[in-house]
C-alpha cells in the first residue's frame, strides 16, 4: 500500500512538473473573438506567430455575448475582440478590459443556398411566412443588427430559429436546412461557393463596428498588447479587408 501511495505521489509530481509553464515560454496568449472573425483572425494569428517566433496564439471563437459572459466568469483570456461595442463596453465598465479600439466594420447580407429554393431577392422576401429563415439571437451583435435592418425596412419576418452565433446561421444555410439566413458579408465571403450572398441597402444603416481590447487580468499583457497592435497595423487591416471587413 505504501509503495502504491509513493507511486501516486511521484506520478502527481511528474504530471505537475509537465504542466507547469516553463519560464522562458515566448508568450502564449488566448484571444476571445467573435465568431465572424474566425477566418480573418485565424490568418492573423498565423502571421503573428510567424513574426514572433516562440509565441503561440490560441483562439476561442463564439458569439460575443457568450465570450463576454465567460470573461465575466473569470475565463483566462488575454484579448477580446467583439462584433459590437456593447459587449466590450460592459467589460470596460466592470474594470475587466481597458482601452477598446475599433479595428474593423462589418454589415449584413442575406445568405441563401446556391439554388436559392425560395427565390429570395431582397429583404422584403423574408416576410413570407413560407420562407424558412434563420437569424442570430438578438443577444449577439449580428442579431441586434438583424433587428435594426428589419425595423428600418418596416418588416417583421418570423424567423424559424434564433442561433447563438453567426456561424451557426451560416451552417444552417450551408446544409440547406433554411431558405435564407442573415449573416455578415464576411461569412458569405468565407463560405464562397456554398452559399450565395444577396446585398440589401438597409444593411448600410446597421454597420457593426468591431472593437478589440486587452483584458485587465490578461496572463500575458505584453504579448496581448502586441497582438492588438498587430491587428490594427496595416498588415492586420489588409488581411481583414481581404476577408471582407471594412475599415472603421
Amino acid at each position: 500500500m505504501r509503495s502504491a501511495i509513493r507511486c501516486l505521489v511521484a506520478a502527481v509530481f511528474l504530471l505537475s512538473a509537465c504542466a507547469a509553464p516553463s519560464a522562458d515560454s515566448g508568450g502564449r496568449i488566448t484571444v476571445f473573438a467573435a465568431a465572424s472573425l474566425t477566418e480573418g483572425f485565424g490568418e492573423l494569428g498565423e502571421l503573428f506567430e510567424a513574426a514572433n517566433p516562440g509565441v503561440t496564439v490560441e483562439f476561442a471563437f463564439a458569439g460575443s455575448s457568450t465570450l463576454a459572459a465567460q470573461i465575466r466568469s473569470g475565463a483566462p483570456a488575454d484579448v477580446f475582440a467583439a462584433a459590437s461595442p456593447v459587449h466590450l463596453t460592459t467589460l470596460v465598465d466592470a474594470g475587466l478590459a481597458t482601452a477598446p479600439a475599433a479595428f474593423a466594420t462589418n454589415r449584413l447580407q442575406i445568405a441563401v443556398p446556391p439554388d436559392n429554393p425560395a427565390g429570395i431577392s431582397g429583404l422584403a422576401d423574408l416576410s413570407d411566412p413560407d420562407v424558412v429563415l434563420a437569424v442570430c439571437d438578438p443577444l449577439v451583435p449580428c442579431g441586434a443588427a438583424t433587428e435594426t435592418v428589419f425595423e428600418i425596412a418596416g418588416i417583421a419576418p418570423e424567423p424559424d430559429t434564433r442561433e447563438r452565433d453567426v456561424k451557426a446561421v451560416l451552417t444552417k444555410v450551408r446544409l440547406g436546412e433554411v431558405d435564407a439566413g442573415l449573416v455578415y458579408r464576411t461569412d458569405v465571403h468565407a463560405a464562397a461557393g456554398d452559399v450565395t450572398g444577396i446585398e440589401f441597402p438597409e444593411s448600410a444603416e446597421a454597420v457593426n463596428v468591431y472593437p478589440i481590447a486587452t483584458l485587465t487580468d490578461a496572463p500575458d499583457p505584453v504579448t496581448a498588447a502586441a497582438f492588438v497592435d498587430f491587428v490594427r497595423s496595416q498588415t492586420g487591416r489588409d488581411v481583414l479587408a481581404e476577408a471582407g471587413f471594412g475599415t472603421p
Partner: protein
Amino acid sequence: MTTRRVRRRIPVLLLVPALLGLAVLVVPLAGLLVETPWTRLWPRLASAEVWPALRLSLWCATLATGICLVLGVPLAWLLARADVPGRSLLRALVTVPLVLPPVVGGVALLLVFGRRGLIGQYLDAWFGVSLPFTTAGVVVAEAFVAMPFLVVAVEGALRAADPRFEEAAETLGASGWYTFRRVTLPSVAPAVLAGTVLCWARALGEFGATITFAGNFPGETTTMPLAVYLALESDPEAAIVLSVVLLTVSVAVLAGMRDRWVRRAA
C-alpha cells in the same frame, strides 16, 4: 446464519474520496440554491418566460417518453428474447447514443432528417414534413437521446427474468402477444417504470441534440435547458430561477415515481 452488528471502522482511504465524491455532486446544486434570489423568486417566475419553456419541456419530454415506450419496450424484448442474428452487435448499437455526445447526435439527426437529409428530403418532398426547427424536431431529438436508457433498463430486467413462466404460458396455448402482455410485461414492470423515469428525466434535460437539430425559437423549440443557457448570458439571475424550476420539477418527479416504484417492487 446470524450476523452480529459490528460498528465497522470506515477506512480513511475510502472515507475521504467518498466524501469528496459526495461534495462534487452536492455542492454545485447547494450553491445554486444559495445563489437563488428567493425574495424575488415569485415575481420573476410570474414575469419571466418560464412558463412557455416549462410547458414545452414537459410536453416534449412526455411525448418523447411515450415514443420511447412504444418503440423501446418491444426493442428491449427483441434484444433479450428473440433469436435474431447479430444480437450483440444490435445491443451495442442501441447503447451508442448513451455514450455519444448529444451534439453529435444532433448533427447526425440533421444530416438524416434535415430538409436535405437522407430521409428528410423524402419527408419534405412527399409529405411536406420538415422536422428541424419544429416542436416535433425537439421530440425526435429527445427520443433519440433518451430511448437507450429505457431499452437498457428493460432489457436487463428481461434477461434476468425467468423465461419459464413465458414458456409455461405458451404451452398452455397463449399467443406470443398475449404472453408478452400478461406474463412478460408484468414481471418487468418495475424496470419499465424505472426506465421510463430515467428516459423522461434525460429527455427533460436534453440540450445538445435539441439546439443542434431543432434550433432555438421561443415557444417552439426553446425548452428549459436552452432557456437556461440563453438566459445565463443576458440575465444570470433569470438563469438561476429557471434552473431552480427545472431542478424542482426533476426532483419532484423522480421522488414521486421512486416512491411508487419502491412500493410496487416491495
